[in-house]
């Protein structure tokens, strides 16, 4: 049996009246990349905070590298955390940031310098090593941040929205780095709002919404649930979304009211089926003012998974 590096069992965390995590159960074996997908406020960061021993669970259990999260210090020696905000000291150079972390972890002067230099090389920051980190671009800061969380050779690393706010090129660089971590046998828990990111990086995805796990599986499994693309239909007035919903349901599509409630979205398993959607609408005599074919978005995953009340 593979060794589980992250285990949460009916994990719950309550802040006042807010249940930030509601009986969350998930696992990740050694060397896996677990993607945690969800909107703002879904509970992703709270889960990371509990697993990194920042916040104790209200109930349920969580284990990291086989240790209960209540055993703070022992776990903290085995993990790395790159939080939502690049946690670098802007006054210090990239080199000094890394050396500081290494020294705090107990490395000697020489060993700390060697590890810092190695990581700067690995993350393409050697050229900026001696510049104050406040002069770094957003992408460089994130890379430095990630490098800092790797100083102590962690077995499990937590990346909380590592690419939020980054330009596409910096995002690609970070994705390559995460891929390499997984190949080196490091277990990665990655939170993201981007389905594409989870798709590219994760071996398994857990979708959180309102603190609960609403779906989990491999990227392929999740996408099969949503379809390969999504058609959004906005009917011509006075036809409401309700008629479109009925029509598409009769034609065998799973349809649900999209954002704004003027339109209806339906996931389609293959692009060829878009024509069937149009034919069904035409046969029912519903005029269409707007029709978009898009990649399935996180919104589609949600709307599909949560199954909102139909608009009638």
């Amino acid at each position, binding site marked *: 049996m593979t060794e589980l590096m992250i285990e949460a069992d009916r994990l719950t965390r309550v*802040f006042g009246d807010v249940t930030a995590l509601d009986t969350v159960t998930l696992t990740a074996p050694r060397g896996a990349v677990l993607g945690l997908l969800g909107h703002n406020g879904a509970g992703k960061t709270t889960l990371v905070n509990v697993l990194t021993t920042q916040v104790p669970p209200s109930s349920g259990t969580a284990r990291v590298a086989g240790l209960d999260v209540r055993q703070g*210090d022992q776990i903290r*020696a085995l*993990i790395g*955390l790159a*939080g939502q905000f690049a*946690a670098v000291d802007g006054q210090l150079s990239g080199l000094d940031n890394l050396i500081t972390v290494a020294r*705090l972890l107990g490395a000697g002067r020489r060993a700390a310098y060697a590890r810092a230099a190695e990581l700067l090389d690995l993350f393409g920051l050697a050229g900026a090593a001696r510049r104050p980190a406040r002069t770094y671009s957003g992408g460089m800061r994130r890379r430095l941040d990630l490098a800092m*969380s790797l100083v102590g050779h962690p077995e499990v690393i*937590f990346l909380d929205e590592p690419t939020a706010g980054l330009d596409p090129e910096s995002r690609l660089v970070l994705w390559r780095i995460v891929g390499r971590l997984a190949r080196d046998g490091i277990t990665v828990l990655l939170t993201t709002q981007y389905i594409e990111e989870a798709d590219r990086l994760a071996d398994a995805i857990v979708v959180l919404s309102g603190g609960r796990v609403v779906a989990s599986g491999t990227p392929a499994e999740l996408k099969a649930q949503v379809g390969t693309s999504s058609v959004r239909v906005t009917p011509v007035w006075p036809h409401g979304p309700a008629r479109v919903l009925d029509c598409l349901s009769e034609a065998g599509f799973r349809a649900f009211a999209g954002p704004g409630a003027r339109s209806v979205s339906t996931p389609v398993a293959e692009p060829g089926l878009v024509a069937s959607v149009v034919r069904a609408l035409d046969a029912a005599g519903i005029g269409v003012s707007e029709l978009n074919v898009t990649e399935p978005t996180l919104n589609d995953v949600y709307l599909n998974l949560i199954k909102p009340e139909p608009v009638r």
Partner: protein
Amino acid sequence: MLNLCQPVVLLLLFSQVFGAIANPELLPPGTAYVDYLLPALLVTTVMGPATNSGVGLVRDMTGGFLTRLRSMPVDPCWILLARSVSDVARVVAQLIVLVIAGVVLFGFVPAGGPLGMLAALAVAVLVAWTLTWIFLALGSWLRDVEMMQSIGVISVFPLMFASSAFVPVHAFPGWLQVVAMANPMSHAMRATRELALGWSTGHTLPAVATCVGFLALGMFCAVRGFRRPIVG
């Protein structure tokens, strides 16, 4: 650099403004106003930076760096200790500049000699460390930058002015005398004056003991407050 000169600017202003109206009869015989003022400024100088320590701690908590430290096997005590030491080290530099400027530019004569002056500085540093820990404790419980700034302003001015810093307490109206005598800063100033000016040193020991008591309380509360999880 500017921070280093700040107490010197205050020394210039206070010695000239208050010195102009200071009634020599109120001062202990043979004491020039600058001699009366400077040992007290050692104490007032450390107040502002102490409040900034608390504000800085709260700022660090909202940034990511403290979260990183807390995800590492580092005891939170050391984070607070390091912060207090580095903040107090800066204050020490300010104090040294203040004393040198006082002697060279303003004719301050520490009648207690170099040893007395050093002892007065040591008391001021102890006060600085104590106040720093008290504000770190407030910050680690309140965790609100604006509130910390307000508390800083509201507490520093009365502590500074309702004290014996600029005018001997017996020149105050009756009620203010009571407040000023209850103000721990007056007692710290009394101690730095005794030591720097070579007066009899009856007040130093109680002042230092009180300070150590507050320091212990501040450290205890700060560590307790800081260990609570950062929620946000």
